[in-house]
């Protein structure tokens, strides 16, 4: 396929042109979280011809994702494919001329700096504040632009962070909202249109960054509610003195400091607990399946192993990370992990 032909409409657009197109083709974008937002970001950037696209996600496809996560199909949910793998397959079919790299990992202090290394832009497709603060720390430290985006119900928010040039996420939202501070774990649901809007704004900001059109960035906190129909932007260009900001002012990157440990997270609204381990281990599924077979129902593919025992459904990834469904009690989950997978 002729490059010029493929991207002709985009090159005709004066904001991009052939120079912008060449820059986009030479760029690398990292999308962290391949759910609803990440799907639209990935598809938009892949179709736009971003040279290298890294797709990171810790989860696998489930039926309830299909209502809004446009990269996934029924067969992905049936086969419980990791989202990063299913997304990369889809994206490679959309545009075979770009390089797509799936990363099936839980983003944490241990791997974030490696994941974003060499990126021209990082796009947020995550579902929690802790990971966003981690992305903010890593991107501010490495001076990589990143684009926050989030949506719940019919409401969404986005902000583009360009380190050294404007405020970072922590200039605006100073501290991490307390985990378990009441309302965190119930489901409010979300509708597709707000996701499309927020992810589209994130994607076009990424294109501006890659096409070297920084003066076109919106430089604000954009807030949209599609049900009440309100759109507003809060100008951030007034935040000039950033010296008080712990991340971009004082350059204290507290989310990048961690120790080798087992990290347990309750997955909101999923009746599940994730147990991750830092350090690089690779699990041999054949061996583990042989060990678990007498105890319950075991099946596995190239990417994950699923083990059902009692009322629990345990999914194990190659890096020894597990998602234990059937409880939100972290102690019970850790017990099951120790018993069946290994401490």
């Amino acid at each position: 396929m002729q490059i010029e032909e493929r991207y002709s409409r985009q090159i005709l657009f004066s904001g991009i042109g052939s120079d912008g197109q060449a820059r986009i083709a030479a760029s690398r974008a990292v999308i962290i979280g391949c759910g609803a937002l990440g799907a639209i970001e990935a598809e938009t950037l892949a179709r736009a011809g971003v040279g290298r696209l890294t797709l990171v996600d810790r989860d696998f496809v489930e039926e309830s994702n299909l209502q809004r996560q446009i990269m996934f199909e029924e067969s992905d949910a049936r086969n419980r494919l990791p989202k990063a793998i299913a997304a990369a397959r889809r994206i490679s079919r959309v545009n075979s001329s770009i390089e797509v790299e799936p990363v099936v990992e839980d983003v944490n202090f241990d791997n974030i700096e490696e994941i974003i290394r060499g990126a021209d832009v990082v796009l947020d497709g995550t579902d929690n504040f802790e990971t966003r603060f981690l992305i903010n720390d890593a991107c501010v430290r490495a001076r990589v632009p990143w684009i926050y985006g989030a949506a719940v119900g019919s409401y969404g928010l986005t902000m583009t962070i360009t380190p050294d040039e404007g405020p970072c996420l922590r200039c605006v939202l100073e501290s991490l909202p307390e985990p378990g501070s009441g309302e965190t774990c119930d489901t409010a649901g979300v509708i597709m249109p707000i996701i499309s809007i927020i992810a589209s704004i994130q994607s076009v900001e990424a294109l501006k960054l890659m096409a070297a059109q920084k003066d076109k960035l919106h430089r604000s906190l954009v807030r949209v509610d599609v049900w009440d129909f309100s759109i507003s932007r809060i100008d951030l260009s007034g935040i000039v003195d950033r010296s008080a900001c712990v991340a971009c002012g004082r350059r204290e990157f507290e989310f990048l400091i961690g120790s080798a440990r087992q990290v347990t997270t309750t997955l909101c609204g999923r009746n599940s607990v994730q147990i991750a381990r830092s350090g690089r281990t690779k699990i041999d599924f054949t061996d583990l399946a042989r060990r678990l077979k007498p105890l319950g129902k075991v099946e596995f593919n190239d990417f994950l192993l699923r083990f059902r025992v009692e009322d629990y459904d345990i999914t194990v990834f190659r890096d020894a990370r597990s998602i234990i469904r059937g409880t939100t009690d972290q102690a019970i989950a850790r017990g099951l992990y120790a018993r069946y997978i290994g401490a």
Partner: protein
Amino acid sequence: MVIIVNGETKEVEDSIAVADLIISLGLKPERLAVEVNRAIIRRAAWSSALLAEGDRVEIVNFVGGGEIVMPQL
């Protein structure tokens, strides 16, 4: 006095502090960013920042995304 909160006029007591406005609106402070007349007010200054007649206040509710409930303004 009258101020404008997220584009809507609102009657509040004279010289109300940003912190008290947040409480009176029944909002949880952890997920909020507050802007008054286009300048972000840092959290540490919320108690001492007093509002005046006609001030334009923007209160932004940060959301986590995914399937997490957040209070809506």
